[in-house]
């Protein structure tokens, strides 16, 4: 049995995509959250914000909000594995004569596709917060978003493979997703924070994804972009391998 089975990857991808467009409430909900952050929190904190450079707070957090959309969409997409296990559909896929690695890859590509769609919708809002980036940056932005999405979906697959039931989901949100997101430098500049916080931010791979997006969207960054890109790709590779390993090993 070969490891890459294109019809299996296609089927997993197609199913998730169909479901995504069918579930309108989920679609609207995942757009409403970043909009709320951007306009309500962003506008609210604007005044009390000691800005760096020439950017207002809403402008500053815009790349971070794009990253946030990707984080939640990717993780949510991968976590659907737990739903499928709880409701039995996973069994139908797992008894089919297809390699599990292909199932995991299909899931990863589905999460990436949906995250890219969601992230692009937020990207379209950029004129509303007076963020203007060169058109030629669009493709690199989408590429960084894609790498970030694939990596985060991988993290989600690892979590879903290790989690016995849905009850641990809250724990995962509180102890993995939220810290990762807060410590990514998305909501506040990673400069001028206490040393211990700086260490945590620098150790978070997501930081470099957010920083890359900031570089491409706003034109400034805290870290060397190329260094960030290499780090992010390496992290993505490790996560993807882990996702495939744990999904193959999982008992369902």
């Amino acid at each position: 049995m070969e490891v890459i089975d294109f019809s299996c990857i296609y089927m997993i991808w197609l199913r998730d995509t169909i479901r995504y467009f069918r579930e309108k409430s989920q679609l609207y909900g995942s757009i409403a959250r970043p909009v709320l952050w951007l306009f309500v929190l962003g506008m609210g904190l604007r005044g009390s914000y000691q800005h760096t450079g020439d950017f207002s707070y809403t402008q500053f957090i815009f790349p971070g909000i794009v990253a946030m959309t990707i984080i939640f969409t990717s993780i949510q997409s991968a976590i659907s594995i737990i739903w499928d296990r709880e409701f039995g559909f996973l069994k139908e896929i797992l008894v089919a004569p297809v390699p599990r690695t292909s199932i995991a890859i299909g899931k990863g590509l589905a999460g990436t596709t949906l995250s890219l769609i969601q992230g692009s919708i937020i990207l379209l809002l950029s004129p509303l917060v007076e963020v203007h980036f060169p058109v030629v940056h669009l493709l690199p932005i989408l590429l960084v978003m894609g790498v970030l999405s694939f990596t985060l979906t991988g993290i989600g697959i690892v979590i879903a493979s290790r989690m016995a039931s849905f009850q641990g989901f809250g724990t995962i949100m509180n102890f993995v997703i939220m810290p990762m997101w807060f410590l990514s430098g998305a909501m506040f500049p990673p400069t001028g924070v206490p040393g211990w916080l700086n260490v945590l931010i620098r150790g978070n791979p997501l930081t470099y994804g957010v920083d890359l997006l900031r570089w491409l969207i706003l034109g400034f960054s805290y870290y060397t972009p190329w260094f960030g890109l290499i780090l992010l790709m390496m992290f993505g590779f490790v996560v993807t391998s882990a996702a495939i390993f744990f999904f193959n090993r999982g008992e369902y």
Partner: protein
Amino acid sequence: MTMTEEAIVVNGLTKDFKGFIAVDGVSFQVKMGENFGFLGPNGAGKTTTVKMLCTLLRPSGGNAQVAGYDIVRDQSQVRKSIGIIFQEPSLDDRLTARENLRFHGIIYKVPGKELPARINRSLEWMELEDRADDLVRNFSGGMKRRLEIARGLLHLPKILFLDEPTLGLDPQTRNRIWEYLLRLRQDANVTLFLTTHYMDEAEHCDRIAIIDHGKIIALDTPQELKAQMRGDLVDLQTGDDALTEKELVAKHGIMVRGDSQGLHFEVPNGAEFIPKLVRELTADVIAVSTRRPTLDDVFLKLTGREIRNGSLSGRDRMRNRLQRIGRRWR
């Protein structure tokens, strides 16, 4: 593949869950085209056996060939040759019936040109054509089951495994599912391997293996199994059951079983025995009846217990509750 007369060959199959032996060295064979039933109470090892035969669980001991392929060495070939209908639902209820079938066809490599025709035929077999494009979440329990059977047949498997195919369905729906299954044997030329704890369903099978505590305790046609009983069963209630029991044992040497419903025993010919019995007994006869033995009686005789019908274990109840909560959340 090699042509075999036997659809399934099982030798000493064993599953040991860290000290708990769920399946304990079972051996049997199922012929091509046969309708073979696994009958036993909850926890007897039926599902574990099915999971091993479907390559979902690795056996701890013994071996088995399904459609001529070894269940450990040729997993992929086994999977291509079988269709599976699980005990718990395994449909995507956010998709339509047709979409569920289409995805199954893609993942099982049904040629794209053939797929639409096969989907239609599967739907026709299960009489679901007019609901093909409805979301599965709006289906009744019986329709979902039929759709699962249609899906299991889509890639034209040689053997269809059904684990408790009518669990949780009402009696009318159960009967209908059985009409479909029996019709299928002719139309789709498929071997059926099913598990059940309903005695009346086991009667539909060509042969039945009765399984209890992980072991096969009897294997034969329903007729032969019932013929193991000495003849007819008599249920008797009298004014003094204890005295009557003594008299029956002394005069006729009959094994009598007593419970709150009265006395129960086997005799070669119930209709002739009853008038004699009424004349002989000291105690007053309150009620007496005779009937042909059922598989229930066979099971009772073999194990000393009755198969509990329809009672859910704590874990099942928990899962059901979880699924209801889950549905609200989604």
